[in-house]
């Protein structure tokens, strides 16, 4: 008897080869077919985005690794940014992270804090604020960890993460060591981070995702093995082939210090993941915050809160860990919002080129159905995608989807021009029927411009009642997309101040009812890609002149406000009601 070596069975071969083609590089992508684009709706879209970064004074480039090639993955992933009102004047200031270069810190490589001059311009106050620091920064999250009324900043690094305490006088102090957050031992790769009061004691705890265990000494170089090639071009290696990171949870002791509780909380049970952006919210609406971690080339993680200081990881079971065919994806950025206006928080996750982004509809119990194709988001697979938001950009009452894109391989386009390093931003407008329409050129030059972007943050820097967008571009100045929205639609902004809850009110969930619609939003300290949005929740109301608000505070208090007039910011203090706004002028 002679057994054939292997039968050349075409079906299995082709199926195998398709999967193989999707996995022949360091990053998981599926090479899926894009959905055909439906016919245009021809509905007007009234938001126009103009990049005003230069006029606004945001001119320093965000240094991040090599410009024309990247030897290591450390240079490729880039960093996030934040809208933060660090001086409580009612105007959003800007905090931008930065990387460095393999050969050492070039001049100008530093994180930057820009103070809002309230006239459309900003002033770089980095040095004065004590925030000058160069390194391989990745993520930023903002929250008032010591409940003193001023928002503090936590930054993750490949290297040493940093906690900057806001002194309340325009300066910050690096309190990493005294807060107990100093890491000894080999450098770790802090990636996503989030302030979250997981035990509901009124103090913000801290979750930090880690990407990979990396060292320059041991890292392979481009072309060295199969994870260091993309489409046949030698490129930086990973994350596949490199050891996974280890995520960390720190409990706030209430005295300015933190204690690591990773093991006790059950976080360390979830291993083997390349963690990236972190989003915390009460997905199953049980009053306790859960933690979602977008993971690159490994299943994403959803830690459900057990109400006793521990978590259970249920990403696969709840439908947010894998693609709809059960495969790993390159999870990078996360948007959170209520796209279908059912009062529940949905998730949007960005992926690598050749794959669709993932759109996950929440049933209100923390179970998700992937609706990417049903929502017509699957029409776009061209770009490696990063920071994202589910945000109402035209105030029509239906949250849209926006994300930024950019390749991680600058060297590829020289050999394969069809894969450019700089690619445009992507905007999907919500058609109000559960589907979206991609707008490539109808939303202004700020959207169609090509950059290699990473983090982005959504906020209203000019307090004009619409959402603007701050974007990190690799080795370029950032973009600041000013939204010039035609008047006609209404809006409402909600700023929350915790009293029994943490002062930042992070973890609060707000349900707005307007017209016949209901929309949920959550106050969070990180989303998009390693970035932090304007903490004032923004609801587009369409033609509705008022809205009712249902506020679920982290403390468990539930407050309702009826018939709140549109086109204003309301500041609501927990248990006290609506209080005067700080510095808000229009």
């Amino acid at each position: 008897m002679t057994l054939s070596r292997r039968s050349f069975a075409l079906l299995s071969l082709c199926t195998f080869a398709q999967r193989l083609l999707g996995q022949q590089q360091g990053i998981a992508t599926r090479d899926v077919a894009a959905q055909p684009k439906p016919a245009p709706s021809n509905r007007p879209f009234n938001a126009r985005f103009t990049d005003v970064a230069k006029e606004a004074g945001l001119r320093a480039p965000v240094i991040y690794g090599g410009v024309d090639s990247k030897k290591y993955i450390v240079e490729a992933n880039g960093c996030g940014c934040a809208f933060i009102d660090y001086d409580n004047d009612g105007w959003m200031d800007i905090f931008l992270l930065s990387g460095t270069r393999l050969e050492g810190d070039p001049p100008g490589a530093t994180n930057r804090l820009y103070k809002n001059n309230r006239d459309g311009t900003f002033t770089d106050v980095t040095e004065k604020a004590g925030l000058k620091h160069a390194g391989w920064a990745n993520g930023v999250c903002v929250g008032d960890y010591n409940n003193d009324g001023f928002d503090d900043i936590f930054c993750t690094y490949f290297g040493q993460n940093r906690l900057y305490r806001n002194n309340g006088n325009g300066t910050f102090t690096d309190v990493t060591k005294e807060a107990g957050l100093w890491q000894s031992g080999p450098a770790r790769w802090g990636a996503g981070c989030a302030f979250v009061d997981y035990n509901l004691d009124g103090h913000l705890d801290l979750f930090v995702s880690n990407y990979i265990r990396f060292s320059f000494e041991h890292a392979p170089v481009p072309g060295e093995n199969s994870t260091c090639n993309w489409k046949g071009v030698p490129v930086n290696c990973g994350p596949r082939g490199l050891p996974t990171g280890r995520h960390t949870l720190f409990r706030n002791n209430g005295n300015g210090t933190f204690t690591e509780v990773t093991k006790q909380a059950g976080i360390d049970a979830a291993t083997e993941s390349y963690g990236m952006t972190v989003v915390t919210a009460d997905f199953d609406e049980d009053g306790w915050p859960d933690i979602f971690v977008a993971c690159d080339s490994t299943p994403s993680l959803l830690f459900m809160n057990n109400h006793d200081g521990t978590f259970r990881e249920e990403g696969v079971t709840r439908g947010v860990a894998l693609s709809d065919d059960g495969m790993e994806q390159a999870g990078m950025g996360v948007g959170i919002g209520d796209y279908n206006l059912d009062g529940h928080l949905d998730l949007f996750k960005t992926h690598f080129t050749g794959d669709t982004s993932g759109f996950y509809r929440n049933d209100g119990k923390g179970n998700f159905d992937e609706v990417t194709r049903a929502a017509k988001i699957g029409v776009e697979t061209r770009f490696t995608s990063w920071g994202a938001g589910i945000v109402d950009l035209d105030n029509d009452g239906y949250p849209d989807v926006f994300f930024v894109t950019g390749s991680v391989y600058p060297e590829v386009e020289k050999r394969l021009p069809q894969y450019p390093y700089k690619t445009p931003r992507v905007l999907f407008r919500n058609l109000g029927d559960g589907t979206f329409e991609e707008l490539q050129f109808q939303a202004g030059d700020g959207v169609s411009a090509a950059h290699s972007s990473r983090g982005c943050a959504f906020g209203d820097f000019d307090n004009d009642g619409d959402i603007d967008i701050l974007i990190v571009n690799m080795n370029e100045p950032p973009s600041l997309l000013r939204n010039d929205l035609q008047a006609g639609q209404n809006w409402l902004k909600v700023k929350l101040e915790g009293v029994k809850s943490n002062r930042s009110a992070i973890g609060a969930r707000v349900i707005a009812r307007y017209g016949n619609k209901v929309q949920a939003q959550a106050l969070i300290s990180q989303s998009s890609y390693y970035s932090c949005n304007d903490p004032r929740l923004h609801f587009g109301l369409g033609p509705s002149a008022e809205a009712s608000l249902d506020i679920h505070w982290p403390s468990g208090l539930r407050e309702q406000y009826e018939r709140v007039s549109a086109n204003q910011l309301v500041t609501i203090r927990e248990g006290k009601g609506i209080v005067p706004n700080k510095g808000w002028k229009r």
Partner: protein
Amino acid sequence: MLQGLAYSGKGDSTTALDSYHHALKISPDYLPALEGAAQIEYEAGSPDAAPLLEHVLKIRPNDVTSHLMLAILAEKSGDCETAVNHFSQIGPILDSHPEALQSYGVCMLKMKRNDDAIRVFQKLMSSHPDDARCRRALAAVQLASEKPQDALATLRPLLDSNPDVDTMRLGSAVYEANKDTPDAVRILRDAIVKDPMQTGLYVDFAQLAMDHQSFQAGVEMVNAGLNRQPGAAELYMARGVLYVQLAEYEKAESDFKRAEQLNPSQGMTEEAQGMLAEEQNQSDPDQALSSVRAKLADKPGDAFLWYLQAAILSKKSAEPGSPEFQQGLESAKRAISLQPSLTAAHNVLAKYYLDAGENALAARECRLVLDQNPSDQSALYHLILALRKTGDQKEIPELLKRLAKARQDATREEGERNRYKLVVAP
């Protein structure tokens, strides 16, 4: 009866058989006539042997020869359960019948009783230590049983002493399974040099090239084969598949068409073209659909084409209840009815059922896939989702473990596949 014996002795089987049947008409339970007729029918490979042998066993239930013959006949017809039942009643005599032992071993293998199969072939080899075929058979069974090191040890004496092409071909597979790709390639190249007319060797090389993403190297070798054997349909087929991976769709299509012209009965050319249509038109499902529908019009009994139609319609994400959704669902069902073992169709059907909220039906389809491939990630994932939705949670933890292991295994295998690349010499 005596007449039958006489004719048998003269080698006139036809007349002998007539004589035995005549005897059996007079006395249906006459054992010598039954045995004589059964012997002749068995040797002729006739299906009429079985009822005669069974008749013998009714009269003499422990008749070893009848059990032996029935076992071999059952194995040849693919009925291993019956074959094993008969083999198990033979006893030690089985060891002295190489053909029977081999059939028994093949059945063990088919029934996934791999360790039993290995024992059988070890017995076969120890009774025929100098027979290269027995040694190769054992090595092949060890390889199929995922014991590549054992297979290499078994095959080593043949590999070290001027092996024939069959041994070299098997040796290539054994080396590859032992992660020794350079030797796998070397010995396969040597086999091709030794017997350049054997098309299977080029196909093996194409497979090896596929495994290591060395598509161009595979094309070059298949080209060499086609220079020798320009009429070999399977080589066009293999090259077409490699061209698909190189995104050279026109060349692929041309090769698939040529393969079909050369050998219309060769399976899968329609499937190949369907797959090509799906690849080529992946950004245009409507065009892919048209292409598949045109092929279905010619071959309405082709399960794979029905599956492709279901898969393409699934990508269009039609709403449950819509005509397109229903057509996709029905196409998947049709594919399965035509070819129940087509796991891809079960997976697509499971997805349709999940989308339609028919979670119990989705779970059933997933289980059918997992019966065939316990590591199918899509089936495991969809089963987890279906069970969650039906509220049947108890099985989920175990399924999560299986899914995690399947993922890890896939990642590891990917790394192993990618460790070596075949290159075209400049």
